[in-house]
C-alpha cells in the first residue's frame, strides 16, 4: 500500500504535479523522502508540522536563510532541521542551462534536491538544508563559474525584482534590468544584514502594466511611463482595421479609453489621440502593439508605501515622484533611498513598514524631513493625490505662518 494515499490524489490530473516532484527527489534523497512523508501527515492532520525558525544564518550575513524545524523530529528525523536558503535570482530571471545545472549539482550535494523557481519575492528557493550544510552550500554556490549569492530576508532590503524589461518587451520605458541590478549591487550590505524596523522591497516594472505587481508589493515601486505623445504608425493602424474591422477598433479601443481622448475615423482608418488628455494607461498600446508605442520622453513614476495586510491594512503604493528620468547610475534614486531608510530607521517602530510610518505621521512630515534633513526637495504635486483633502485638520508650521505673514502683509 502506498505510504502517501492522500498526496497520491494530487498526482492525478493534467496540471503538472508538485507531488510528483517531491517523489522524484525522494527516490534518491532521504530528506526529500521524509518531507514527502511529513506532508502526507499534514494532509491527514489538516495542519502544518513546521515550527518557528529561530536565528539561522551563514557567517557574515543576518538574512537569506529561513530557519525551519519539524515538530515531529523523532518520526521524521531527516527533516528535523530543514532550512530554506534564498538565492538571489539573476535579474529578470534569465538563465543559461549551464547556470541551472551548476545550482542543481551543488544543491544535490547538500540539500533535499527540492527547489522553488521562484519564491514570492523572486529568489530561487532551496528548500530544506540542514544547519551544518548551510555554509559549505553557500560557498560552493559562491565559487561556481557563474556565482550565486544569497538573497534577503528579515528586516533587510529584500531581493529587488524587475520585469523582463527591454530584454524582450517593446513596452519598457526604462531599463528595468539595469536599474534593479545596479540597486542590488549598490545595496549588498543592506540586503544581507537586517538593520531596519522591518523589511523593505524595491520592484521595477517597465510600463504601467506593472507585470511584477510593484505597486501592490513594494515599499518603493518604480513604474515606467512617458510624458510626450504616443507614437502612432497609421499604416499599422490600417492593417489592424482591415483585420479586426472598424467597429471593433471603435468599441474595443476608442470606447474603452478611460479619458475618451481617442478618435477613430472609419473613412481614413486613422486614429487620433488628444495626448494632453491621455493618462498613459496602456490599454490602446496593449491592444494595438504594432501601431502604437509609448512616447519618446521616457522615464518612471516612483510610488512608495505598498505592502500586504499586516498590521495597518494593505496599501497600494502612492505617488511620490510623478516622473523621473532613469539614467544609469541612478544617483538621485540611490540618494533618495538612503534618505528614506535613514528617516524610517530614526522614526519607525519595531516592525513598522515605511508606508505605515508615513500613515502614522503624515506625508507632509515625510516630505518636510526629506527637504530639511536630507536636502531632497520634493515639491507637492497634484499628481500625488486622487483628490485634495476633505477635512480641515491642516498642520500649519511656524515657517508656514511666517511665510504667510510676508506674503499678505503688503
Amino acid at each position, binding site marked *: 500500500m502506498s505510504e502517501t494515499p492522500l*498526496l497520491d*490524489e*494530487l498526482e492525478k*490530473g*493534467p*496540471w*503538472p*504535479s*508538485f507531488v510528483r*516532484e517531491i517523489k*522524484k527527489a525522494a527516490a534518491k534523497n532521504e530528506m526529500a523522502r521524509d518531507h514527502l512523508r511529513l506532508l502526507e501527515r*499534514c*494532509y491527514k492532520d*489538516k*495542519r*502544518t508540522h*513546521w*515550527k*518557528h*525558525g529561530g536565528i539561522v544564518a551563514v*557567517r557574515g550575513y543576518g538574512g537569506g536563510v529561513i530557519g*525551519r524545524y519539524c515538530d515531529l523530529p523523532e518520526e521524521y528525523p531527516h527533516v528535523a532541521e530543514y532550512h530554506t536558503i534564498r538565492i538571489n*535570482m539573476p535579474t529578470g530571471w*534569465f*538563465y*543559461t*542551462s*549551464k547556470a*541551472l545545472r551548476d545550482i*542543481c549539482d551543488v544543491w544535490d550535494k547538500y540539500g533535499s*534536491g527540492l527547489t522553488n*523557481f*521562484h*519564491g514570492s519575492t*523572486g529568489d530561487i528557493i532551496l528548500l530544506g538544508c540542514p544547519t551544518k550544510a548551510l555554509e559549505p552550500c553557500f*560557498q560552493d554556490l559562491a*565559487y561556481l563559474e*557563474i556565482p550565486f*549569492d544569497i538573497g534577503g530576508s528579515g528586516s533587510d532590503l529584500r531581493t529587488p*525584482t524587475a520585469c523582463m524589461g527591454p*530584454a*524582450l518587451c517593446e513596452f519598457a520605458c526604462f531599463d528595468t534590468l539595469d536599474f534593479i541590478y545596479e540597486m542590488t549591487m549598490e545595496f549588498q*550590505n543592506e540586503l*544581507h544584514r537586517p538593520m531596519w524596523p522591518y523589511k523593505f522591497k524595491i520592484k521595477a516594472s517597465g510600463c*504601467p502594466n*506593472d507585470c511584477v*505587481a510593484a505597486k*501592490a*508589493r513594494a515599499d518603493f515601486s518604480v*513604474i515606467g511611463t512617458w510624458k510626450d505623445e504616443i507614437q502612432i504608425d497609421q499604416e499599422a493602424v490600417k492593417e489592424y482595421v482591415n483585420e*479586426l474591422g472598424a467597429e471593433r477598433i471603435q468599441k474595443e479601443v476608442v470606447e474603452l479609453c478611460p479619458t475618451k481622448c481617442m478618435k477613430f475615423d472609419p473613412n481614413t482608418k486613422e486614429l487620433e489621440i488628444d495626448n494632453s488628455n491621455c493618462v498613459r494607461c*496602456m*490599454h490602446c498600446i496593449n491592444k494595438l*502593439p504594432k501601431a502604437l508605442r509609448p512616447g519618446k520622453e521616457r522615464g518612471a513614476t516612483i510610488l512608495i508605501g505598498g505592502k*500586504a*495586510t*499586516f498590521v495597518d*491594512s*494593505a496599501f497600494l503604493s502612492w505617488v511620490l515622484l510623478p516622473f523621473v528620468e532613469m539614467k544609469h547610475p541612478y544617483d538621485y534614486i540611490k540618494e533618495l533611498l538612503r534618505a528614506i531608510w535613514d528617516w524610517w530607521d530614526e522614526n519607525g*517602530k519595531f516592525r513598522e513598514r515605511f508606508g505605515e510610518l508615513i500613515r502614522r505621521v503624515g506625508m507632509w512630515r515625510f516630505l518636510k524631513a526629506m527637504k530639511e534633513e536630507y536636502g531632497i526637495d520634493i515639491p507637492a504635486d497634484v499628481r500625488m493625490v486622487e483628490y485634495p483633502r476633505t477635512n480641515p485638520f491642516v498642520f500649519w508650521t511656524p515657517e508656514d505662518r511666517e511665510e504667510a505673514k510676508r506674503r499678505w502683509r503688503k
Partner: protein
Amino acid sequence: MSEEKRPYKTDFGPPDYRLLLHPVIKKNYGKWKYHEVIRPGVIKRVAESGDVVYIVKMGTPRLLATDTIRWIADLAEKYCDGYLRWTSRYNVEFILTDESKIDPLIKEIEEGGFVVGGTWDATHAKYGITNIVHTQGWIHCHTPATDASGIVKSVMDELIDYFKEMKLPAFCRISLACCLNMCGAVHCSDIAILGIHRLPPVVKNEKLPKICEVPSTVASCPTLAIRPDPKTKGVQVNEERCMYCGNCYTMCPAMPMADPEGDGISLWVGGKVSNARSGPAFSKLAVPFLPNTPPRWPETVGAIRKIVETYAEGANKHERLGEWIERIGWEKFFERTGIEFTDKHIDDFTLAQVTLRNTSQFRW
C-alpha cells in the same frame, strides 16, 4: 581551489544578467518592435532589426526537483541554444529562434507531463488564465491556515482549459496566500485564495516568557487585544477583540493558531495591479469561509469555477473581473454567482468607513 583554502566570499551579488541573455536578445536589447501571440502558449517577438524570437511558455508547479530542472536545461540546450527565463508566475519561457522547433519542443514538454499555455492576445481580446502565484503552505511554512500547492494543483486541474486556450474576455489573475501574512501579496488579484484562521491563539504562558518578547508580542496585535499578564509574566488575549490574523504567532511561538476545524479558505475578487483602463484595485471579499478539505478542496475549486464561469459569460471584451462587477454592481455579482452576502462581508477594520455605501442607488 580546495574547499579549505578558498577565501570566504560574501556580498558579490547575483550574476550579471547580461551574461545570461540569448545572443539575439543581447543584439536587440531595447529594440523590440512588437509582439503577437501566434497560438496559445507561443509568443512571437519581432525586433526593429527584423530578428524574431518565439517564446514557448510552459506552466510549472513552482516546486521542482533538481532532476526536473536538469530536464528543463536539456530542453533549453536542444531547442534554445541553452537560454531560457522564468516569468514572475513560475512559467518557463523557452526562447527559440527557429520556428520549426516549436512543435517538437511542445511535444517533448507534453510528454514530460508539463503544459504549454498561459498566454493572452490583447489584440483579439482572447485571454488565458496563467499560473497561480502561491506560497508554501504545509510544504514548508510554520503559520499557514491552509496548504498552498495542493489547492493550486486542484484549481489548475479544474481550469486547465483556461490555461491551454485563450477564452476569457480579459486577464484573470489568480493568487493564493496561505495566511494573512500574505507572502504572496494576493490582495490585488482578480481572484485571491486566502487561508484564514477562525480561532484565537492558544496562549502558552508557561513557556511564553522564556521564548517571546512581551512588548513586541503586545505590539503585534492590530486590534490591541493582547496585554501583558503580570501573574505569569506572559500575556492575556481579549478574545472578543481577536480577529485571528496570526500576527502574534509570527512574533511569538507560544501562541499557536493552527486548528484543523478553525482554519480554512476565503475567496476575494476584483483586484488588479495594472493601470490599463481602470487603476489598480484591492480584491474584495466574496466567500468568507470554506473548509480545509484535502487532498482536493472541492468546495474551493467549485466556488472558483463558478466565479470564473459567471464572469466569462457576463463580461465585455477587455473587462477585468473587478471592472465587470463595477459595471453590473455588487448586488448582481452575488445574485449571479449564487454566493451569499453575510455580515462578514461588511468591513470593520481601519479603512471600513470608505467601504460603506452612502447613496440610495441600488439595483434590485
